[in-house]
């Protein structure tokens, strides 16, 4: 007959063994990024292309840049350059906003919405255009291969359609942006833009 302390010892050993086994197995379990089916569906295009994201159509209208942007009266000075992307969202069947935005270059660098970067967009009802702005600070050497990615959900882009737009910038744009005046970020608007 096993005594009480043997039960305690056995339970403890079993617990430790399971903990060790679980920790070992955890390193072998595939994570979210290992599932190729979960990868975002990239819809690639260029400035001016209307990209269908199923829940909305996204069009990058304009790309601007400066070393200084101003929003809500505060000026932000970048040690690199601010790249400002103006884009239009038209929802397909229900109110939709673009809340995910990031920029990438060919060196594998990714600039998200952390820090001072911002994406200003509003929910747009189906058929009514929302005019939005994302601004991100990047080093000038990123401009020639810089792309913007836009999607519906900022937290999770798995299985979702994601617009990836080549911004078509060049090295010369870095000098142009450096000399540009402060860019005052407009608020997001709905409907036709005033001409």
């Amino acid at each position, binding site marked *: 007959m096993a005594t009480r302390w043997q039960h305690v010892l056995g339970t*403890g050993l079993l617990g430790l063994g399971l903990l060790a086994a679980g920790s070992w197995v955890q390193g072998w379990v595939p*994570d979210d990024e290992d599932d190729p089916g979960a990868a975002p569906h990239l819809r690639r295009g260029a400035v001016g292309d209307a990209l269908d994201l199923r829940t909305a159509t996204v069009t990058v209208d304009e790309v601007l840049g400066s070393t200084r942007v101003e929003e809500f009266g505060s000026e932000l*000075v970048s040690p690199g350059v601010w790249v400002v992307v103006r884009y239009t969202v038209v929802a397909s069947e229900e109110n939709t906003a673009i809340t995910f935005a990031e920029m990438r270059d060919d060196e594998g660098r990714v600039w998200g919405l*952390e*820090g001072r970067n911002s994406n200003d967009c509003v929910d747009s009802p189906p058929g009514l255009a929302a005019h939005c702005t994302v601004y991100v600070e990047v080093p000038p050497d990123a401009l020639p291969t810089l792309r913007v990615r836009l999607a519906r959900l900022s937290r999770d882009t798995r299985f979702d359609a994601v617009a990836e737009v080549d911004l078509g910038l060049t090295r010369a744009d870095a000098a142009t942006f450096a000399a540009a005046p402060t860019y005052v970020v407009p608020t997001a608007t709905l409907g036709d833009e005033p001409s």
Partner: protein
Amino acid sequence: MPPREPTSPVATLRAHPWLTSAVAGVAVVLVVVTALGGWARSTPEGAVSVAAGTPVEATPFRIRLDEAAATFVHDGRDAEPGLAFVVVEGRLELEAPESVGFTTVTGAITADLTSTYDQFGSPTEEPEAEVTVTADGSTLLGIGPGLVYDVQVTFVVDEASVPERLTVTLLQHARRASALDGELGWFDATPVARVALDVAPLPATRPEPEGF
């Protein structure tokens, strides 16, 4: 004298149950700790002392601290009555390829200050750093790759606790999945370097707050 009967190992174990259990327990602990990687040192080289102005690799950042000063006003903001700012000037750069957020930035810097407060004037047990961009005074809530910022790292302390000399500890992080939600992030802050700085003293008098 009759020859001694050789005892079997099993009989020996049965004869000393507590000793057997203790040895088995120690063996299990050794195996489990080894399996979990618990013998690796968290800071292989330990925190080293570096001189002001020396760049430090504090993964994922490269940080340089130059000088420190105490002040009643920082970026146009007055310290609460009885409190003061200790401001450390330096340079910050992200060496990882993806942007990192606010908690990683502020988690990379601490100091040996006492009687500390948060930026809203509430007492804190540990010094809380606020990192602002020198060029415009904005709070650096995160940082992207390839950008090098001149920054000011600010701590709020009791006016009477402003030191003549300050030791700032820089901490490195490790990239791994969160144990809670599996999200990749920067965790496990460990000291990598200490920078001692003379603190320029407070002005003799506190400036009068500007009226509206």
